[in-house]
């Protein structure tokens, strides 16, 4: 188990190096110049331009810039935003809870609905229930997130007027963040109606972000269950006179979960990319929106640092899933 863990840990290092290069190169390959964009419509004199290039170090060879950047990372310094002049790391930690809250709600929704749906579909294989669940899942899987988000906004916010269109909470409420999770902070604030407002802001983005993982988890659970239900040990469980509920919910599901957990882990990456779109649609002040805004402004430090941090989050989660996998699969645990 420990060896397994260390092996996975060792894989993190090359991944990290790769991501740092890609992130660094990506933003520089985009046309557009951060200093010109910063100057905006007013324009800038060539002297001032060169002066600023020197200040930010953009006049040095790219390889030197990269090494300088890596040296900073190794000291825990991801640089400073060109736009806000605040450290990238600090901005990240201010905005990350918003994304985390959204992503957690989405993955919980996807798991809580996706697994039972997959199990029932497998147990009632071929029934109208199975067919409609799988039809819906296929639709969800191929749903363009942007379009789907707008559709929900038009219907629930525009037509029915049930949910707000953007933000995390109504502007009527204001309190200092304690945990960074709006659901918890709104409760802690003790302000009447704050929690309800936070929930109503969270609902649509959660649904949008959960759609693809939900579809994937439901399909994976169904196929894993179908395979497991044909196994000899399920027949053994039946021959013991166990109730069907116990056979399906314990003996079969416990085995089917092994591949499903891996799938859930892989969905974290999907969730992060999904968050970028979802946050943009709903003006959700998280790191997804932060990334999009920074790309627009060619804020080199924020984009390369932010991508690296997002990649770290994905790697940490995958590592956690690997460990969890080792725990739920006795054949790996020693």
């Amino acid at each position, binding site marked *: 188990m420990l060896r397994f863990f260390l092996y996975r840990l060792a894989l993190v290092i090359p991944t990290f190096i790769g991501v740092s290069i890609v992130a660094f190169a990506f933003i520089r390959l985009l046309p557009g110049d951060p200093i010109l964009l910063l100057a905006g419509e007013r324009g800038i004199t060539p002297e001032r331009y060169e002066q600023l290039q020197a200040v930010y170090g953009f006049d040095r060879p790219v390889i030197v810039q990269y090494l300088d950047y890596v040296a900073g990372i190794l000291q825990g310094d991801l640089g400073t935003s060109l736009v806000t002049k605040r450290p990238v790391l600090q901005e990240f930690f201010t905005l990350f809870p918003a994304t985390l809250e959204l992503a957690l709600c989405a993955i919980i929704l996807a798991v809580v609905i996706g697994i039972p749906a997959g199990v029932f579909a497998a147990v009632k294989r071929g029934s109208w229930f199975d067919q409609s669940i799988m039809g819906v899942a296929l639709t969800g899987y191929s749903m363009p997130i942007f379009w789907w988000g707008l559709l929900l906004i038009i219907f629930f916010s525009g037509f029915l007027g049930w949910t707000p269109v953007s933000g995390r909470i109504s502007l009527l409420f204001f309190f200092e963040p304690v945990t960074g999770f709006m659901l918890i902070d709104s409760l802690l604030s003790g302000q009447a109606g704050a929690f309800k407002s936070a929930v109503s802001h969270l609902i649509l983005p959660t649904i949008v972000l959960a759609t693809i993982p939900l579809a994937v988890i439901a399909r994976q659970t169904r196929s894993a269950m179908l395979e497991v239900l044909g*196994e*000899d*040990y399920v*027949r*053994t*469980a*039946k*021959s*013991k*006179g*166990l*109730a069907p509920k116990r056979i399906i919910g314990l*003996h079969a599901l*416990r*085995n089917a979960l*092994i591949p499903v957990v891996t799938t859930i882990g892989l969905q974290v990456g999907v969730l992060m990319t999904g968050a970028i779109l979802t946050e943009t649609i709903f003006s959700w002040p998280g790191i997804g929106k932060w990334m999009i805004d920074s790309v627009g402004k060619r804020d080199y430090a924020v984009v390369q640092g932010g991508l690296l941090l997002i990649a770290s989050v994905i790697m940490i989660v995958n590592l956690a899933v690997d460990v969890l996998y080792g725990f*739920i*699969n*006795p*054949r790996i645990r020693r």
Partner: protein
Amino acid sequence: MALLEIENLTVSFKTSSGPFKAVDGVSLTCDRGEILSIVGESGSGKSVAMLALMGLLPWTATVTADAMRFDGRDMLQLGAKDRRKIIGKDIAMIFQEPMSSLNPCFTVGFQIGESLRIHLGMGRAERRERAIELLNLVGIPAPEKRLNQFPHQLSGGMSQRVMIAMALACDPKLLIADEPTTALDVTIQAQILDLLVGLQESHGMGLILITHDMGVVAETAERVQVQYAGQKVEQQNVRALFSDPHHPYTQALLSALPERATRHGRLPSIPGVVPGQGDRPAGCLFSPRCQYATERCTREAVRQDEEFGFALCNYPLKDGQPTGYPETAEAAP
């Protein structure tokens, strides 16, 4: 009244190419303290017949029988819930593939304890004690250690011992062992058979031993029932069956035994395979592979009486010779 009485059991599967009779009019009885062996090549419907009794067949199966009584209860009338109170408790079953029959995600102790909790309502400590006792009974050394192990840490023989321990958990009245040694090494096979027979004697259980190996029958059973392509073709006591088989299929199975083959020099095998769906002949199902088959055999097969071991044969064998065989037999087409 015998412990288990099955009369005229028929199981037919819905398949894409129409219904398929996997078991066709099989009757059997097994009493307390008795070993009944069911022999036949694979595909003869041995497993399906027993799974029908246990209620473990998929929904594509239709089970009919004139009677299916266990311990005085009519298993045909039993609802799923009531049946679950009997199977795993009074009737237990072990299977051909011990390694895949244990759930890889749960410990040996958990899997044995489960029946104890469900059927006998035992508490944790009691279950543990009983599980250790059971593991001792099936000859597993250091049972305390084994309780916390997972199936992948066990060998095939060990797994089958655990399966037996699990089956014996609630002191069943009837144990069905479906080819319990087929997947095991030859050296382990004998150990497991000895264990099963020993336990059957000490517990006074009925034991239905399914096998395709006449050698296993010779060493264990009292009564033998030979099954072919879903039909019972002969039934005798083991000694009589070995000395005077009445059905040509039984004779063929016996002459395939290694110790008998030495007389002939080389190991004979029965040509052909058990007919499955689609290639079942009319008349006697064994006729295409039978050396005595005549034109009549392609039309019908009659059931003989007890004198000929209830053989399903037009010319049952007596001392190796077919009786009532036509003088000038036309060979079957």
